């Protein structure tokens, strides 16, 4: 049912543009991306009744490119994890051609592997975040779900690029997504990280190895590269993510929008009660962790920032020898949509959050690593700003698979 998928649908008759690179395309977004006049609650009672005052910068761009924003789908509270998320269903049930959803720790990519579509997270900073109601500003960004790498590239071509309303974007040459349309016969070398593989169950790593043989048959090279502290990505994401989440959720006080408690003795009690009644247990736990690091264990946060820089440098070193890294997108028994504790959420995204910590582009190709009946998703992670090359590799692998079938 459409109402089970869409939190809000645009009731105005769609103005189907005949011109523009995205003419005729339909897009679903999540309820945390601002569209003027739309209820925008980011899946949280803390944003109840909040109506966006203006379009997000990327909404402006896709509208101008001729696409129709069909509506917003249900999402996990503030975009953390996939509980209750219906973004991928909007695509697989053919309501829309593409979905834009926030990638906080790998949500679109894990979702893609579960639902058999392509999921993409661009390099940090190349897509404007203005109008995105986020949670972890230094790690999140808009991600894309679509049915082919080429479709992802066509949407990226429209939304990529500097925006004078998002000052956090770097002044650099942006990736050129037009070249993805003609997948090159690349002889790319993909790196396998044994420190990651050894965390998998036997059947999972067998499925992964099988996928690697397929990759080799498609004339890509495989090379072993090492990230000694692979397990630290998760810790770093958790500490920094919780701290940033605690800060960026400070504004939800129930004063100007969102749920406000029925009665309180003073403003302080009103804040506390409103917030207590607004947030779900998962977000509450996360914010509590963040406040703990901010107020009680700041050193842990400082260390996490330092380790994050080191991990980033280490991964960047690897790209001297390989064009991209290859991982499964998810674990067989870790169900992201059922994860109910912070620990379970991090279990479910343990393989995707590297790209968020390092700010690197990542794409997930479905139907590539099959373990029994479960699609684990083939995940590629590439160097910062090498988004187009990464999508080209994905397109190459996708075409190979299609050909084999």
């Amino acid at each position, binding site marked *: 049912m459409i109402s089970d998928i869409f939190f809000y649908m645009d009731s105005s008759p769609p103005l189907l543009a005949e011109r523009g690179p995205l003419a005729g395309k339909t897009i679903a977004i999540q309820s945390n991306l*601002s569209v003027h006049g739309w209820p*925008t609650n*980011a899946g949280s009672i803390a*944003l109840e009744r*909040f109506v*966006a*005052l*203006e379009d*997000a910068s990327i909404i402006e761009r896709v509208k101008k490119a001729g696409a129709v924003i069909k509506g917003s789908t249900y999402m996990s509270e503030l975009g953390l994890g996939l509980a209750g998320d219906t973004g991928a269903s909007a695509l697989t049930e053919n309501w829309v051609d593409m979905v834009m959803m926030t990638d906080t720790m790998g949500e679109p990519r894990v979702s893609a592997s579960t639902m058999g579509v392509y999921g993409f997270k661009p390099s940090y900073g190349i897509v404007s*975040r*203005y*109008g*995105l*109601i986020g949670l972890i*500003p*230094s790690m999140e960004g808009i991600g894309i779900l679509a049915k082919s790498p080429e479709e992802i590239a066509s949407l990226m071509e429209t939304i990529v690029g500097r925006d*004078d*309303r*998002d*000052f*956090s974007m770097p002044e650099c040459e942006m990736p050129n997504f037009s070249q993805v349309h003609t997948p090159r016969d690349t002889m790319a070398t993909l790196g396998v990280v044994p420190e990651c593989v050894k965390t998998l169950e036997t059947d999972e790593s067998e499925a992964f190895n099988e996928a690697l043989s397929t990759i080799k048959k498609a004339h890509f090279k495989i090379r072993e590269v090492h990230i000694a502290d692979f397990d630290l990505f998760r810790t770093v994401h958790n500490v920094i993510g919780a*701290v*940033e989440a*605690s*800060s960026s*959720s*400070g*504004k939800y*006080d129930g*004063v*100007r929008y969102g749920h406000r408690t029925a009665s309180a003795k003073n*403003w*302080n009690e009103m*804040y506390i009660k409103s917030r207590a009644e607004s947030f779900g247990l998962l977000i509450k736990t996360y914010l509590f962790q963040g406040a703990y690091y*901010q*107020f009680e264990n*700041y050193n842990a*946060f400082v260390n996490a*920032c330092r380790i994050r820089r080191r991990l980033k440098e280490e991964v960047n070193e690897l790209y001297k020898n390989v064009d991209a890294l290859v991982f499964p997108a998810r674990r067989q028994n870790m169900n992201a949509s059922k994860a109910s504790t912070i620990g379970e959420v991090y279990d479910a995204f343990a393989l995707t959050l590297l790209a968020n910590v390092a700010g690197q582009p990542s794409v997930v190709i479905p139907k590539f690593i099959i373990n029994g009946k479960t699609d684990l998703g083939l995940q590629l992670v590439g160097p910062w700003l090498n988004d187009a090359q990464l999508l080209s590799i994905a397109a190459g692998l996708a075409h190979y698979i299609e050909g084999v079938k």
Partner: protein
Amino acid sequence: MKTDFEAVIGLEIHVQLNSATKMFCDCPNRTGDEPNQHICPICLWLPGAMPQFSHEVLEKAVRVGLVLNCNIQQQSAFDQKVYYYPDLPKGYQLSQAHQPLAKNGWLEIIGEDGQSKRLGIRKIHMEEDVAKLVHESDGRTPISLVDFNRAGVPLVEIVTEPDLRSPHEAMEFIRTLRTYIRYVGSSECSMEQGSLRVDANISIRPKSSDQLNTKVEIKNMNSIRNLGDAITYEIDRQIGSLISGDPIVIHTRLWDPEKRVTSPMRGKFEGPCVPDPSVPQIAIPDEFQNKMRCLLPEMPDQKAARFVNQYKLNYEEAVLMSSERDLSEYFEAVVNRKVRPRTAAHWIATQMVPALKERNQSLTDTPVTPDRLANLLTMVEEDKINANSAKEVMMRLFETDQTPQAIVEQWGFKQISEISELENLVDEVLSTHSSAVNNFRNGQAKALGFLVGQAMQASQGKANPKRLREILTKKLG
């Protein structure tokens, strides 16, 4: 016993920058207007909005850093100072805790002994101002209103080293700092209007000791005089505590300008400071810094020295004419219109400045432009009108847009310098005041003054007083 102690004072100074817009959005930087007129999704921190750091704010802040002799840091960054209060709806204040804009500066003041003393500045950082709370207790339920006009207004915080030893030094430091910052055009620096706010940290130690004891912070001084008085009060209070053996604990006290005492305020909550991921790092390359340095105006002490040299003002006149940038520019504009510099300085100091104050005007918005004042003073120098008439003409310059020449013509202020006309005046005065004439001839010199006065009055103030006196003396002699 009191003299066995000395005070150790450090200041924390907030200066509101006078940029056209707020720090992170394009809202006008005008705090005094009707509440909540200058607000937008960014300064209200509505979901989805992102800060857009103003380059003008950076320039104004860098100028403050340069004029206070600081090292401008090549890299600086914003942090989130976390606390929850209704004046801060996003739960943190953007400030620079870990990587401030500027470090290690100094300012020289004249100490009580007349010697110059260099006082250290530890750091200068930028931060956003918070909303203003207006508490109303008239109704049945007291309410607090929030005015967001001030939310996001740019501030710099200047933190001194604990180098100050007396209320005098604190007051001098603030006076000098204010002059300098006003000179570079970064702020009006009015303590009364809140664009300059000074907190003082004070501790006491035995003389000749170099230890730093527990400090007490005092706040809420809204004038330089109150700053001096509050520090004096606090020093005496702490010495009293020491002598009577009461422990001094770290806390904050508020100055009460009515009762003229400090009293403890509720302990303030010190939140953590976390790096902000949304405002990019601020990189200041050397070339930008050098450019800003080149754009700094001539500072007051240099300017005073030049005024002595170039215009032959005496030292006091030169200091006065260079004390404010507007004043110095006005003075030079008048001088450039061929008025003798000392005449210009004298008239500006004794006539213009008081007249402006009376009318609540400034040198930049007064109708008495340098051009009009220069025309008037030229007529004085050319003996076309006398000083008394000139003062009258000047008052009329404030009310009409006529030229000084036209005013002189219309109101008949032209000075009578014709010898024949003056002789007629004198003859008339001599004949009607024969007793005064006799007194003078009998040796009473002051009768001459009376006769000059009578003749001036008869001319309705227009006679050339110098020539009048000459003719009178001649006729009497």
